[in-house]
């Protein structure tokens, strides 16, 4: 809307009258989607995909940038009056109105699946992430499990119309047909674009797929070792794909939706936040970030999975262990609070 310079001028002029508030705070009364602090989105449509999954379409206000297929964005929703943020992949193709596809499995996702309705407001951060399509055409293999289909759906819908004969195999693991998100859309896409070959694997019928087993995979996709591989889903699944690809020298492009936590042996820990003068006990299965949130102490965070580094907080004393690798870290300096626990005491400058 308009030239940024002109817009800036009008905003500054309006700011003289709205001082000390930002003029956008007043514009909100008329339904504007942006404020001095946030970019917001308004839900336009909600589509049920499976019994526990919905796709939420939204329009985004000023500050949003168009996503690239495969990226995710931090989405803030209000649960019991409190703003909580989680990362969600954008399931819509590039150049369209964005959407997220959410599977109910905890506090925020259940809230979205049960309550999201047209007209509701979502809080948004800009799309980010390196789970992106290759720049040059090659044979591709997508391996996804469960809600891991979401970024891949965006990629397929973006890629196939662009290059209809592109050679793409999708191996998609889900519990059964009913819980398989986008099952029919994928079949339609394959009908339209013969280069796409989807393989559905329902664990209820065929048992677990061991993604690190080369023979099992060869049955589904004989030339899997020659393809550029993408994997998305739970940590255990993604790690299995990585193991197999590693064995023949490949490095797949991956996105993890969760972390498999190292067993802490039931040990409790203690963290201290010096700036807010707060000492907390950290439960055996909790991270520093989660313990702080439980005590209503907000720390910065993004993906909550150890990938984006937006949760860095300076450790000033003590030590932490990484819950994914079990690695001990005792040097003072920034640490990722979303994947660390005190070992057993840690002091943070926060």
């Amino acid at each position, binding site marked *: 809307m308009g030239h940024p310079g002109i817009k800036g001028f009008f905003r500054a002029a309006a700011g*003289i*009258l709205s*001082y*000390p*508030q930002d003029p956008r*705070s*007043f514009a*909100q*009364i008329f339904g504007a989607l942006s*404020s*001095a*602090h*946030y970019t917001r989105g308004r839900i336009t449509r909600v589509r049920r995909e499976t019994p526990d999954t919905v796709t939420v379409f939204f329009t985004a206000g000023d500050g949003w940038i168009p996503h690239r297929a495969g990226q995710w964005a931090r989405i803030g929703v*209000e649960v*019991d*009056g*409190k*703003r*909580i943020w989680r990362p969600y992949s954008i399931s819509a193709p590039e150049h369209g109105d964005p959407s997220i596809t959410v599977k109910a499995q905890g506090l925020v996702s259940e809230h979205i699946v049960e309550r999201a309705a047209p007209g509701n407001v979502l809080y948004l951060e800009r799309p980010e992430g390196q789970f992106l399509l290759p720049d040059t055409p090659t044979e591709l293999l997508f391996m996804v499990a469960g809600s891991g289909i979401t970024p891949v759906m965006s990629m397929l819908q973006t890629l196939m119309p662009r290059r209809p004969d592109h050679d793409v195999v999708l191996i998609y693991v889900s519990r059964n047909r009913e819980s398989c998100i986008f099952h029919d859309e994928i079949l339609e896409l394959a009908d339209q674009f013969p280069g796409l070959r989807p393989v559905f694997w329902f664990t209820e019928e065929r048992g677990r797929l061991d993604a690190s087993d080369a023979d099992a995979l060869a049955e589904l996709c004989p030339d899997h070792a020659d393809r550029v591989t993408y994997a998305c889903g739970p940590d255990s699944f993604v790690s299995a794909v990585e193991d197999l690809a590693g064995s023949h020298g490949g490095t797949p492009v991956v996105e993890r939706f969760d972390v498999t936590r190292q067993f802490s042996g039931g040990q409790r820990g203690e963290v201290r936040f010096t700036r807010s003068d707060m000492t907390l006990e950290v439960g055996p299965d909790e991270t520093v970030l989660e313990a702080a949130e439980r005590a*209503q102490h*907000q720390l910065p965070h993004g993906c909550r999975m150890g990938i984006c580094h937006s949760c860095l907080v300076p450790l000033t004393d003590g030590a932490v262990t990484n819950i994914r690798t079990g690695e001990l870290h005792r040097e003072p300096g920034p640490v990722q609070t979303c994947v660390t626990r005190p070992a057993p005491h840690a002091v943070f400058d926060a």
Partner: protein
Amino acid sequence: MTLAPAAHHTATTAVTSSPPRRDPLRLTEAELAELAAEFDAVRDEVFSRSGQSDAQYIRRVVALQRSLEMTGRACMLFSRHKPLWWAGVGCLSVGKILENMEIGHNVLHGQWDWMNDKEIHSTTWEWDFVAPSAGWQRTHNETHHTWTNVLGKDRDVGYNVLRMDPDQPWKPVNLLNPVINLGLAPAFEWGIAIYDIELDQFLAGKKSGRATFEDFKRVMKKLGRQSAKDFVVSPLLASLTGSGKASIKGFLAANVIRNVWAHTVIFCGHFPDGAETFTEEDVRDESRGHWYRRQAMGSANIDGSRLMHFMSGHLSFQIEHHLFPDMPSNHLARIAPRVREICRKYGIRYTSGPLPRQVFQAWRKVCRLALP
């Protein structure tokens, strides 16, 4: 003075709910610990309940305030016409009062921080008041709420310019007590802005010259922008319709109405009869129970309608607010009966009275303490 008869008339309703059974200053450590546990339980109950309806409440108040302010400013553009002048002054006065009290004061206390929303958060809010938020948070939240009514520590006891307690040494300048207070009321926001620079602390060598200068600069900058908005830019726009002069008068009226009302409510918080002061000796090694007791004994409530409570930012529940400074204001009325009951049980006087009487008593104190 119409205040005196009103005060006399209501003096028959008892100040305390019933005569204290115990002397609150003689409570044992064990009793104080019990008292702390009872107040903590009230707090926990509210904090475990805060949720969607609270968030909706404060957002509605903010939307109401912004609508009033925009309407008020729009009216001022045509304030040459008397009805619009009155409507504008009305909307702006109420808007500014809500912004400063039910919203600003309470947001800056962190009452809404739990929502995790930067749009309504103590770390980001700047209020429509000349005193910058940051300086006020320091003198009010850190000094006044921690050292409530401790002579020599709580600078809010008289704001350095008034003698508000018999234990403060009398100086000849105190003869001007009533005059100063009368002048302070309409200029309250400027008074608070100057007060927050803490010049007295600088002169006493307790605050560095640099910090004082930084605060001074911040106040001047905000004062400049606040004045530019209400007294330069808005009137210039209004002059397009020939309403320039009328709008200056209108903005002045709205600012003064807000200042007088804020001054009135705030003077009823700690200065009516029954609100006690303390010495530094009293608060040495204070436990949570001691702290609660001092907050309850040092504060005074105002009885009145829901509208009055709302317009005072629920500071009319001063006792509850001082016990739980970060409790969302929309809960204070509901917990008041429980707080009153706990106070009664431990013999703590729960000072409360209708507005005219509390105002009268505060002013009576200002006048009486002008003399040695």
